[in-house]
């Protein structure tokens, strides 16, 4: 992916650029609103990471608004130290696609960038999903692995569907809370892990290869890889 990072804090920028590089992405960095606007408007990026508060007279949300008004549809992830729900809503309303509060774990950022990129590239939204020999059909709401039907509770189905839509991609606990339960807060417990292990029992227990894996310090991933 080609990513633009607009962020004025040097430390955070270095950390993000380096991390993205290691994950195999190329990153351009602007440390002020003017350069950020210039780059965002001129270059084709897959995803833009935009800090809300920038030095100078152009702030992050203003750039997002201008980009959207000029017809740029590049997915934008807004980074901000403001965590209040209203700020989050304002960020998304101005045209951002996702919102991440500082401080954040790098795994969370990476997972969200992947998700944004994939969503922008119009991954099949309605059709059946397949990972390895695991099949999920959103229309008939049937799940099978190999030739065995698997019965799932509605929420388990939603959880698996989300994971499979983001197959081969790390999905964080926060992403699961927001997308599966619509919980925009941190329940401060390991309940998500319990749900995952229940789901894992249903889809992986009697097979020798586990498709639903835990990614240490980051989240979970459904993958067909060895």
């Amino acid at each position: 992916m080609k990513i633009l990072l607009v962020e004025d804090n040097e430390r955070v920028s270095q950390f993000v650029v380096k991390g993205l590089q290691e994950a195999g992405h190329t990153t351009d960095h602007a440390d002020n609103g003017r350069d950020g606007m210039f780059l965002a408007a001129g270059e084709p990026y897959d995803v833009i990471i935009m800090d809300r508060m920038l030095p100078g007279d152009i702030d992050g949300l203003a750039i997002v608004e201008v980009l959207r008004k000029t017809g740029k549809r590049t997915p934008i992830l807004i980074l901000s130290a403001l965590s209040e729900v209203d700020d989050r809503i304002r960020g998304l309303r101005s045209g951002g696609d996702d919102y991440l509060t500082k401080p954040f774990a790098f795994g969370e950022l990476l997972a969200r960038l992947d998700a944004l990129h994939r969503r922008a590239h119009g991954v099949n939204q309605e059709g059946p999903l397949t990972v390895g020999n695991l099949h999920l059909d959103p229309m008939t709401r049937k799940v099978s692995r190999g030739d065995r039907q698997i019965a799932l509770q509605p929420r388990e189905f939603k959880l698996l569907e989300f994971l499979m839509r983001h197959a081969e991609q790390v999905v964080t606990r926060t992403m699961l809370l927001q997308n599966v339960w619509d919980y925009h807060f941190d329940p401060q417990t390991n309940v998500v892990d319990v749900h995952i292990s229940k789901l894992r029992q249903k889809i992986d227990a009697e097979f020798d290869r586990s498709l639903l894996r835990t990614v240490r310090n980051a989240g979970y991933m459904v993958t067909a890889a060895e």
Partner: protein
Amino acid sequence: MIRSSAVSLALGYSVLGFAALILFAFPLWYAWQGTIHEGRAEILLADAQRLTEIYRRDGADALKSYIDTRVRMQIAGERILLLTDADLRPLAGNLAAWPKSVPATPGDYHIQVDMGDRGGIQAAFVHVATLGRHNLLVGRDNRLFAPLEKRFWYGLTGAIAVLSIAGLSIGLITRHALMSRVHSIQQTISAIIHGDLKHRLPTHLTNDELNTLSRTINGMLDQIEMLVHGVKNVSNSIAHDLRTPLAELRSRLEELTLIRPPDAQTFAEIEGAVADVDRVIRIFDALLRLAEIDAGMRRSGFVPVDAADLAATAVEFYAPAAELRNIALNFHSEGPLPVSGDPILLAQALSNLIDNALKFAPENGIIDVAVQRRGDGAAEIAVTDNGPGINDAEKVKVTERFYRGDASRGTPGVGLGLSLVQAVAKLHGNALELQDRNPGLRVVLSLPAPQAPYIGM
């Protein structure tokens, strides 16, 4: 003093009073004068006609003697009579000479006449008639009406004086009363400005404007005091509760630089440090969320929500965790239960309540989550556990920020869970109720019905 609103108001009313008085008095005066004038003119005309009749019937001499008789019989000099010849020489009557200001032509005149020893110069109203070669003057002096007129003017002046004095004194008294109350309000407020938030404005039992205002301001002060108190508490608690993980973090990092252990151990320590930082961040997030709720900013986010659905989701969310500990997590509902509220905050409050119940319920315990419509239309969400419960002394404290009861030692959490539920309940217009279940605790969160959205504090 004119600047005082009370005095200027009283003066304004006085001026209005003068105007009303004058508007009333002058038409009256005018009508009165007209009526008197007309009446006198008629009487004089009748007099003159009667005298003319005598002159015509019996001649000038008869009239002369008649006039003499009349003059002699008169006691007061109210009537003026004078008969003269063609050259205006007096023949009979009580005037020494024909008044210079009166022409010898018939008509009505206002004049000053010299009544000699019977009153000196008097204002008079006279009628002049010509009888053949004689001139007749019939008049009445105005002394009769003078006392009446005088009384009228005295009355008017008196009324104006009373009005002015009353206006001014009412103004001054009101001003004094108002100033003394304003002064006491000022004193209270300046005490508050100097930081003593305990003061309240004096109020009386009456319902006047100042009292209503004072009561409203007192309500505002209560809220401010509570918020300031809350902020003070929170700052103290933050200082205490953030210091602990920060101190751990610091010593962990310092130790690393001093000891320089092998790589594997170093990385393990660094991961521990990140976890410490995450803990600090979580506390911060919880505090910010609380501050946001306290500030009442989220009330704009109120929408109709189904409380039963929110509760069902929360129960379902925690079900696997309950199952793991063999706790029966039951859900009772009578179908959709619409309320007006903030879905994100309500979900978080419910999740905190169930999370708490799970923490305190014993192994193989029972937790009931019940959603029902109360008689008054409010929705009631009750979470009941059969854990150790909370004694009365602790009930007040559990909703305080960072408070952790004895029972919660050794459980994860920072002591903000119930504070948040309490804040959410308050934002939705209701307090949180903690009831004993012997054993166990029943926590009740009530929410307003959507038809009557909660307005104001």
